[in-house]
């Protein structure tokens, strides 16, 4: 992959250019790659932060780690405008239906990242009142382990999501496999 050269004085590359045909005055590539490139660098995350992993996320958004460098500086507090649901923290069983409703309100295409041991598996809260992993109620794309994970790990998870977003086929969300997967969770 080549780098799209930015002709400003700084010479900083904004994004990687996808493979394609290039000639005098034109560049041709597939629509899927262009859409993937655009989506990847403009993910709007919805932070669903319930405990200490949420604090780590705040550090991730802060100046030192700065998630804005990955095109995600705009948090969406409305699920209808969000692309990525970030679940960070312990989800009690009573919170389960709320989380599920938030997921259902998001428009396709949507992705989910589960940050921290509690969201992934219940963590240390192996007890009657805590949901033993959010993947029991909604599908999850990327798991970030840790108790809590450091901001570097959260950024690594976001980059994994970016990779999924970039390489996803435009037809995936219409496929029978995808619908069957959602049906497994009782969605739609």
């Amino acid at each position, binding site marked *: 992959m080549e780098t799209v050269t930015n002709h400003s004085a700084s010479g900083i590359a904004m994004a990687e250019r996808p493979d394609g045909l290039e000639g005098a005055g034109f560049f041709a590539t597939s629509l899927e790659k262009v859409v993937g490139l655009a989506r990847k660098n403009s993910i709007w995350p919805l932070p669903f932060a319930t405990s200490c992993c949420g604090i780590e996320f705040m550090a991730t958004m802060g100046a030192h780690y700065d998630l804005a460098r990955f095109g995600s500086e705009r948090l969406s507090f409305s699920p209808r405008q969000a692309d990525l649901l970030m679940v960070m923290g312990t989800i009690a069983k*009573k919170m389960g239906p709320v989380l599920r409703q938030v997921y259902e309100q998001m428009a396709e295409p949507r992705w989910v990242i589960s940050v921290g041991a509690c969201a992934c598996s219940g963590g240390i809260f192996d007890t*009657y009142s805590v949901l033993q992993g959010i993947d029991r109620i909604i599908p999850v794309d990327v798991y970030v382990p840790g108790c809590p994970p450091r901001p570097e790990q959260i950024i690594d998870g976001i980059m994994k999501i970016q990779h999924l977003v970039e390489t996803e086929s435009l037809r995936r969300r219409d496929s029978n496999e995808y619908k069957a997967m959602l049906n497994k969770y009782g969605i739609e």
Partner: protein
Amino acid sequence: MSSSERTLEILKERFEDEILQVETLYDFLTISLKPEKIVTIIQHLYDHPETKFQYLTTLSGIHYPDQNQIAVMYQLHNLMSNERIRLKVFLPVENPRVQTLTTVFAGANWLERETYDFFGVIFEGHPDLRRVLNVDEMIIFPLRKEYPLEDQTREDKKDSMFGR
């Protein structure tokens, strides 16, 4: 005469037959009572000019699996003299019923809901006895000791990993 002795004396004047046991645990006067008249007793301690236990600190349940009993524990506070008292009533596990305290303290409402939620104690006359903290679909009373603390649906924790 110490203030806790005086409290006990006031209680004995009218409710001598209701008292099962009196003990002082960590300087905290604890009186076990028969459950039938508990609300009348608390009302009396509320109204009496020398006790004035007009603040309900807490109300909770305790499961005693060996005795096959569930206790309901009330802690009262006299804000004038800064005295505290603990009252306990014992109920059978099969049918734990006691009169509601919401007629004396409105603040007992959620405390009794919590006690119902976790121990299954039925407070007769309670205006809205529903679960308050756990999910509505829950069919057990999780703080009774016959129920395991751990979530039984968890698959990644094998007993062998914990030497069980």
